[in-house]
């Protein structure tokens, strides 16, 4: 197909966190994006969560900025309430047909004020809150929803007409019809997420029968500050705070009886999280978690688990609960279970069922419409080396739809899928995106401030409490205000035109809008004044709705006074506003990849496919990394063959320059402009850096006779011998968690359990009579890997669990290995004499990490792995812009996950490398050099390493500060720290904030004069 046939647009189907990430990455790197969501608003499952593990971040706090960014991105078209009907064409050139169901509200008119829902007389249960709250028949999914457009629930609406009567914007359209759409795109990404397992199918737990048995997602809403009880933990039967809460794990997971053999991968962690939050909400609450294996396999998860036990006192019981009964009088629940062979009963006030993840309801329909395959469990089928590709070329997948996974893995995959989607149509980059053209900016620097104030009624939301006409009149009386008016809706399209007109008519050079919150509406108004020829930073907002009329509804006089104060404060700041230029940084469009393992090579190849020149530096003589030693993958694919084919591809790619046997000496610069020198002297300039330096297997010297008895070896060493046919004898013992989950190395190495299964299965395949024992603490074969655990057990592998803290004892008895271990289940000591003792040794960071980190000004964890910018939503980014991390360098993980991250770094890097210049934020720190004495107090306050003390160019003896505006994020932390007043924050200068303080206290000062 000719390059010109490629279409520079991508359709993303599913607007959860996965879809948002894909859409943002693509739209930021030159592609038009159509984001199709079946619900009326985007946000998906994450928007329902209270907090996220293992940092207990508030989910909405970290997600809302992405929601807003997606909603207002001019290259992302949101198509909500819509379904895909047909996909024609092939990779690079698809035609997608779909249907958008009627919202019955005109999206272009609805301002999201919510008056309609306040008055709607029809109540129904609120799905967003898992039916713990009430919503109306006209509704928005949640207060922060994007797009913030109400829609009518056709099932519930009786057509009484009240919403239409209430809506001052005239947005209700009862006769709105379903709309068909047909869109041409080059690639498609599917990310429809997952559904929760229906706990009714596990009848023995009484879900749906006993009121106080809830699902984990319901409990999430119960915990949430925005949930039914404002965060107080209450049980549904009577609102009592349950003293004892039981969490039952694996409901609908690892359960043949319900047809789901896989592990859902996230439930252990979310139950720990929910237990911790419950405990934080009410100190007297005693949570107890009933589990089979605690699967805390992710980055720093084990430490979270340990904190739950040690600091929060959460109890963990290793047992599968048999059944739950209700005491009909108290509605308490009695759990029956067996612990260490003994039947037990215990009473709880509330039971939370950790429901598993299953494919979304419409998975099959979607797979048929799009023509890709599902796997046996009904999830989207992917390959071991192609984790984000569906069986249909040009259609990619990310998130929980391909297998149950947590948020960071989802976000990484979302970026990874975006990279694949972009590579397909790289030649059509920048063909369909639009760049907004604005009129030339008026220079206002020499002008007296001429301020226009627009005061919004917001229907009756403001006007019903605050006397808007008197606020507008008051605004007119303020110095420098030359124009003020009131609007029914200041944000409506016609008012935008009016604002532009007034700017021209009255020569306004500052605009103040008194309405709702700048968090959602500032960009809209900034855009409007830009269209009128004013700099965007000459805009200021007074929040007289969310923070005034809505919270002082019964005190109209005081609220009106406050609204006037807020307008006066905004005008005071506005007077001092200056035009700010968004500084542009030139971008060197080449990339550096450090590390030539699978992650690094995947990244280099994908970048090259997108036309980027790549420098790939590998310290070993040969490309390939850890994979060369792995030999077996559980799926049966050959990792060595794979990695060698990658290496061949890399070597022959004209866009990639390979430096093997070379180490990095120094990296200087910042996003768009890095300069790297190798120890061997080569120099290169590039715009981004991808860190993929891998990791290594722990050498357990001195433990379990390692290095002393030739029959004792690590898992990788064993696999090597197995491959070469050098293994002797017919009895095998595997010891898990060697060098993991213990002091000094508290976290889990994630891959060893599955690696052990792979090896054990291989042994059994070669010799079905071989005696194979696995000594373990928890088997952590998460996701679909559970089937290898099952397979090993079916093949006759014996599993013996030992207690945490009582390691097996290994002795050399005349050259023979003797292993003694206490079986936790029976309490009896077992003696084994294996010919081969295999140590599942943990993963350790690569040797070079500690030297590389300071060169890049990026942090590492205390265990030595690279620490990403945000554990949940920025899994492959660093806080330092333009630097990314993939693969084992970030922490232990499987090959498919490494490939996903490798691809993700490409997508993230392309948001920089696809452009010739970058725009820095206008709100950055600014230095008055005459006042700076180079004390350096500000330097450590900067989390982005944008500050550096350098010699003063004018006076060699003196020192001064250098601000790298490319790195500055505009938080102002340094400004707050500066003792000499040399630093200022553009847009939030000291003068501006002081002016607001003074304006706020103007009448306090009057008061003061009167009293004195």
């Amino acid at each position, binding site marked *: 197909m000719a390059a010109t046939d490629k279409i520079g647009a991508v359709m993303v189907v599913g607007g959860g966190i996965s879809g948002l990430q894909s859409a943002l990455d693509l739209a930021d790197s030159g592609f038009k994006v159509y984001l199709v969501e079946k619900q009326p608003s985007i946000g998906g499952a994450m928007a329902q969560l209270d907090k996220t593990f293992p940092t207990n971040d508030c989910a909405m706090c970290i997600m809302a900025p992405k929601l807003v960014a997606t909603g207002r991105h001019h290259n992302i078209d949101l198509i909500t309430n819509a379904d895909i009907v047909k996909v024609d064409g092939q990779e690079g050139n698809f035609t997608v047909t779909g249907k958008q169901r009627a919202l019955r509200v005109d999206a272009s008119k609805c301002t999201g004020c919510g008056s309609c829902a306040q008055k709607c007389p029809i109540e129904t249960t609120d799905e967003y809150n898992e039916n713990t709250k009430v919503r109306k028949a006209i509704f928005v999914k949640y207060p922060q929803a994007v797009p913030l457009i109400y829609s009518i629930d056709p099932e519930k609406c009786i057509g009484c007409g009240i919403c239409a009567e209430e809506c001052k914007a005239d947005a209700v359209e009862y006769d709105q019809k379903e709309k068909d759409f047909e869109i041409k795109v080059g690639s498609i990404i599917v990310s429809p997420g997952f559904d929760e397992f229906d706990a009714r199918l596990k009848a023995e737990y009484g879900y749906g029968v006993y009121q106080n048995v809830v699902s984990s997602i319901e409990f999430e809403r119960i915990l949430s500050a925005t949930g039914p009880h404002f965060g107080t933990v209450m049980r549904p039967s009577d609102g009592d705070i349950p003293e004892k809460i039981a969490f039952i794990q694996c409901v609908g997971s690892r359960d043949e009886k319900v047809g789901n053999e896989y592990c859902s991968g996230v439930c252990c962690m979310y139950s720990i999280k929910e237990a911790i939050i419950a405990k934080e909400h009410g100190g007297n609450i005693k949570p107890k978690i009933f589990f089979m294996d605690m699967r805390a396999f992710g980055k720093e998860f084990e430490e979270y688990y340990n904190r739950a036990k040690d600091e929060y006192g959460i109890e963990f019981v290793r047992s599968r609960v048999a059944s739950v009964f209700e005491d009909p009088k108290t509605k308490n629940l009695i759990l029956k279970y067996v612990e260490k062979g003994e039947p037990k009963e215990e009473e709880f006030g509330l039971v939370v069922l950790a429901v598993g993840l299953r494919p979304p309801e419409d998975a099959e329909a979607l797979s048929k419409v799009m023509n890709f395959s599902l796997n046996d469990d009904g999830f989207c089928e992917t390959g071991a080396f192609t984790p984000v590709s569906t069986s249909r070329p040009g259609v990619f997948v990310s998130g929980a739809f391909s297998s149950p996974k947590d948020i960071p893995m989802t976000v990484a995959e979302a970026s990874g899928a975006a990279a694949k989607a972009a590579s397909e149509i790289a030649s059509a980059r920048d063909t369909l995106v639009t760049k907004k053209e604005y009129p030339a900016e008026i220079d206002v620097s020499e002008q007296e401030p001429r301020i226009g104030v627009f005061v919004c009624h917001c229907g009756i939301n403001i006007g019903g409490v605050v006397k808007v006409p008197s606020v507008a009149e008051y605004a007119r009386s303020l110095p420098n205000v030359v124009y003020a008016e009131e609007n029914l809706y200041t944000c409506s399209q016609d008012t935008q035109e009016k604002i532009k007109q007034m700017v021209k008519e009255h020569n306004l050079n500052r605009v103040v809008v008194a309405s709702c919150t700048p968090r959602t509406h500032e960009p809209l108004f900034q855009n409007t004044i830009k269209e009128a020829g004013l700099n965007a930073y000459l805009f200021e907002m007074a929040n007289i709705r969310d*923070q005034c009329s809505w*919270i002082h509804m019964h005190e109209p006089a005081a609220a009106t006074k406050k609204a006037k104060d807020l307008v006066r404060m905004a005008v005071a700041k506005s007077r001092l506003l200056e035009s700010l230029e968004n500084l542009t940084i030139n971008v060197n469009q080449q990339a550096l990849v450090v590390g030539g393992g699978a992650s690094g090579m995947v990244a280099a190849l994908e970048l090259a496919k997108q036309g980027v020149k790549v420098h790939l530096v590998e310290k070993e003589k040969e490309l390939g990394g850890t994979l060369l030693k792995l030999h077996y993958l559980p799926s049966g694919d050959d990792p060595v063959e794979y990695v060698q084919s990658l290496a061949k591809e890399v070597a022959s790619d004209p866009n990639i320059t390979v430096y093997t046997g070379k180490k990095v000496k120094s990296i200087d610069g910042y996003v768009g402009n890095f300069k790297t020198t190798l120890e061997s002297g080569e120099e290169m300039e590039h715009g981004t850096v991808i860190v993929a330096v891998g990791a290594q297997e722990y050498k357990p010297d001195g433990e379990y006779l390692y290095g002393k008895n030739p029959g004792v070896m690590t898992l990788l060493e064993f696999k090597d011998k197995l491959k070469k046919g050098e293994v002797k004898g017919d009895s095998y013992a595997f010891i898990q968690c060697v060098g993991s989950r213990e002091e000094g190395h508290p976290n889990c190495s994630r891959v060893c359990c599955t690696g052990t299964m792979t090896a054990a299965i291989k042994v059994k395949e070669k010799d079905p009579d071989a005696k194979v024992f696995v000594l373990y603490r928890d088997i952590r074969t998460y996701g679909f890997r559970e089937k290898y655990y099952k397979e090993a057990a079916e093949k006759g592998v014996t599993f013996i669990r030992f207690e945490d803290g009582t390691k097996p004892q290994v002795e050399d008895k005349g050259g023979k290995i003797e292993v003694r271990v206490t079986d936790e289940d029976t309490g009896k000591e077992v003696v084994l004499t294996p010919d081969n003792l295999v140590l599942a040794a943990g993963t350790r960071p690569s040797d070079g990490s500690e030297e590389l980190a300071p060169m890049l000004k990026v942090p590492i964890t205390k265990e030595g792995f690279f620490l990403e910018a945000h554990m949940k939503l920025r899994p492959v980014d660093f806080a330092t812009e333009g630097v990314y991390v993939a693969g084992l360098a970030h922490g232990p993980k499987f090959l498919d996950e490494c490939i996903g991250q490798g691809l993700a770094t490409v997508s993230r890097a392309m948001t920089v490398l696809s452009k010739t210049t970058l725009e820095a934020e206008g709100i950055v720190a600014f230095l008055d050099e005459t006042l700076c004495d180079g004390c350096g107090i500000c330097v450590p306050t900067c*989390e982005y390493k944008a500050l550096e003390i350098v010699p003063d160019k004018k006076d060699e003896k003196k020192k001064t500060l250098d601000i790298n505006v490319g790195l500055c994020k505009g938080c102002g932390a340094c400004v707050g720290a500066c003792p000499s007043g040399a630093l200022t924050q553009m847009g939030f200068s000291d003068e501006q904030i002081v002016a607001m*303080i003074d304006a706020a206290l103007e009448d*306090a000062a009057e008061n003061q004069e009167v009293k004195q």
Partner: protein
Amino acid sequence: MSSTTPSAQSEEKAEGEDFEPKIIVFCCNWCSYAGADLAGVSRMQMPPHFRVIRVMCSARVDPEFVLRAIQKGADGVLVAGCHPADCHYIGGNYRTRRRIALLRILLQQFGYDPDRLRLEWISAGEGEKFQKTMVEFTKTIEEIGPSPMRGGD
């Protein structure tokens, strides 16, 4: 338990106390300001005596701002930021905590009740916490009385 009813507020006023506290609230853009908005969206009622000034990060709150507000007659100053570890700017709010502790000492030395300055972590999801904080802080300030700058003691 302090009453969270708005009527408690108006009753107090009706009893003839004409002291209307002047409270300045600094909110960080990403969490606390969003929390304040959420309180609004949820229509949570609270006393109307505070004025919010938005800053990008609570670490931007220069000690000068607090002192300026007090000097200009503010009866109370509240600094609200993201919970530790939630900070949009990674670690900004840890610095805020230290700064506010120092400022409270300073206020005491100047003869002000240090409780006139308060630091509170409020996340974007904690509309109710914002409401509670404003109700309680207003009450505290009412109890302390007008600032010496406004003729109180």
